[in-house]
């Protein structure tokens, strides 16, 4: 396993090695930007020898919208709906990252109720995101049934979001200093009714895919990434934890009420696609555990500590905050001049961007079908890569 830094031009115009014995030649194939397994507009150039992948060249940028530049003209409240559109499967966690950074910099207090609801919503979103990922992974590897099962749970959790927030995908829920809406009186009961059902669904996932020999053969010992290289490549989230590094911001730097609940950080031993698969399934069980502990006693209090129209101006300087989304560490870096309502510079550290580049290190030598497994196990969301 090695990582070489070369430009796209170098890679595309490098001489293609001819294999004299078999009279074959290496060739380049575009996988994407429009491809059923690309999950979005991700172009990956594969240098192939027959069906063996010699080199992988990811070419992101097909969904680039310049969100960071746009945010320089937006107030801190207006930035939040834009973060929904980065990693749209972790919209609430992305909202929280901005809110957390702004609250810390501008000394905006929160209360116990806000933190608890934020944590519950984040964990529900994590469940929703992993359910979708599970279904999509099944579909990528040829099991269409899994896709329908994954979407079933996603929709059922989506109903809860729709009742409380009013949207299913782009929530814009967590605001600096509070929440957009308070939860409804029957929210806790509805979530409590849902949890046993979700546990049953995770068992169904095990029956449908985990126990399937074809599925196992396509994931086991494929695309092994060791912990050292995972850290060196900057990957986070389940991808890093599957390689045996127990780094989870919820446990390492607790925010919200994560320091008041018991949960285990799930780690793998081998670091192959199977570990990345199974770590996510176990994380779903841990998420259910976290919600179970919190849902019974949501403290009383207001759902926002500042008025919506209150002007937020951050003090001069550099501000950084990060949260653990369903895919890894999402960080917000804000440079403020202390005078304007808008940041003068802003950067999102998105987990998918770093997670994407490990394919350059681990996919070489595997077949195209194995590359599909590797890409699925990374759980990429393309708008988060391009931003």
């Amino acid at each position: 396993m090695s990582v070489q830094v070369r430009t796209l031009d170098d890679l595309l115009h490098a001489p293609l090695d001819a294999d004299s014995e078999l009279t074959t030649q290496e060739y380049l194939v575009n996988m994407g930007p429009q491809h059923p397994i690309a999950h979005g507009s991700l172009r990956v150039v594969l240098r192939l020898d027959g069906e063996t992948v010699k080199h992988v060249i990811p070419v992101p940028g097909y969904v680039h919208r310049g969100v960071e530049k746009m945010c320089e003209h937006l107030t801190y409240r207006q930035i939040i709906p834009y973060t929904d559109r980065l990693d749209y499967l972790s919209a609430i966690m992305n909202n929280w990252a901005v809110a957390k950074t702004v609250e810390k910099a501008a000394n905006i207090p929160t209360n116990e109720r806000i933190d608890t609801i934020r944590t519950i919503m984040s964990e529900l979103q994590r469940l929703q995101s992993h359910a979708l990922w599970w279904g999509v992974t099944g579909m990528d590897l040829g099991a269409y049934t899994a896709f329908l099962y994954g979407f079933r749970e996603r929709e059922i959790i989506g109903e809860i979001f729709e009742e409380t927030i009013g949207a299913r995908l782009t929530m814009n829920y967590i605001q600096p200093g509070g929440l957009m809406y308070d939860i409804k009186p029957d929210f806790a009961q509805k979530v409590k009714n849902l949890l046993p059902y979700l546990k049953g669904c995770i068992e169904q996932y095990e029956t449908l895919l985990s126990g399937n020999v074809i599925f196992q053969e396509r994931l086991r010992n494929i695309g092994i990434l060791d912990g050292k290289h995972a850290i060196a490549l900057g990957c986070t989230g389940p991808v890093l934890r599957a390689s045996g590094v127990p780094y989870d911001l919820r446990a390492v730097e607790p925010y919200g009420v994560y320091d008041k609940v018991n949960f285990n950080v799930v780690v793998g031993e081998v670091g192959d696609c199977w570990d990345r698969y199974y770590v996510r399934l176990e994380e779903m069980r841990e998420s259910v555990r976290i919600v179970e502990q919190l849902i019974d006693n949501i403290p009383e209090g207001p759902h926002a500590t500042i008025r919506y129209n209150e002007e937020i101006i951050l003090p001069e300087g550099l501000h950084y905050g990060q949260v653990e989304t369903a895919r890894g560490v999402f960080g917000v870096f804000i440079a403020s001049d202390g005078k304007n309502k808008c940041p003068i510079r802003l950067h999102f550290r998105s987990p998918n961007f770093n997670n994407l580049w490990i394919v350059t290190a681990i996919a070489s030598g595997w077949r195209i079908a194995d590359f599909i497994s590797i890409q699925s196990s990374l759980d990429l969301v393309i708008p988060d890569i391009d931003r």
Partner: protein
Amino acid sequence: MGMIRSIETVTAQRVIAGKTISVSVVQRKQTPNKLSIAFNAVLGLLKGMWLTLTYFWSPEKVVTRMYPENRDTLQLTERFRGNLRFKFPNETAHKSHAALLEHITHETQTLPEVASEWIRDEDPTRWYHNCTGCSKCEEACPNASIRILTRQGEILEDREIDRFVWRLDSCMFCNACVLACPWDAIEMTGGFENAVYDRRLLVYCLNKLAGPRINLIQDEQDAAVRARMIDPRERFGGPIPMNGAGLPNLPPVALPAPPDVSTGAA
């Protein structure tokens, strides 16, 4: 070749970043001999197949919603963020809630001629609104989807709303305008069927009347003066880019003649 028969997680303590945290390590128990592998492989396939098959005799587990067919019974939640709409406090007196929802859902579908029919048919008190034209929503909008045009009122001699222009085509339904409104004048509704054949119809006025807030009109005792405070506004029309206007290769939408706003517009 192998077969992962059961997955166990072992709880342990690990140190990371100077902190001891409890982890559960995913471990695999692999079946050793070939006969066992074959047996478990077939068993795993059959189990999955069985789960799928159960849907044949228990169709109540199916959660599919037949969307276009169930339009009549479709219940959207109260907070659902669909089309932006003015709140008309007098409106529920005129229509039942169900009829109102129906009206909201299909409002954007109607042709401009139909949308302006109310001017001829209906009582204007129904369209009294809470909007003062303070532009808080315009400031809060991240996409500049809202444009507030105000005018100088004749009777009250104060700025008042002339046209509240909403661009559906660039709206991202983030709810910022509704939260920013100090007067509770707008709301997001259950309307989500927004497809039209002409994108010029995606920019339009939300207010039906140009004039002051409802309470300022209702405080006035003289009916003749009340009538002079307000002017009708159509859904489409007025000096707004793309609001029915022509585009390259597209002629203007055939609209009723717009009222003369050159004297009152901001």
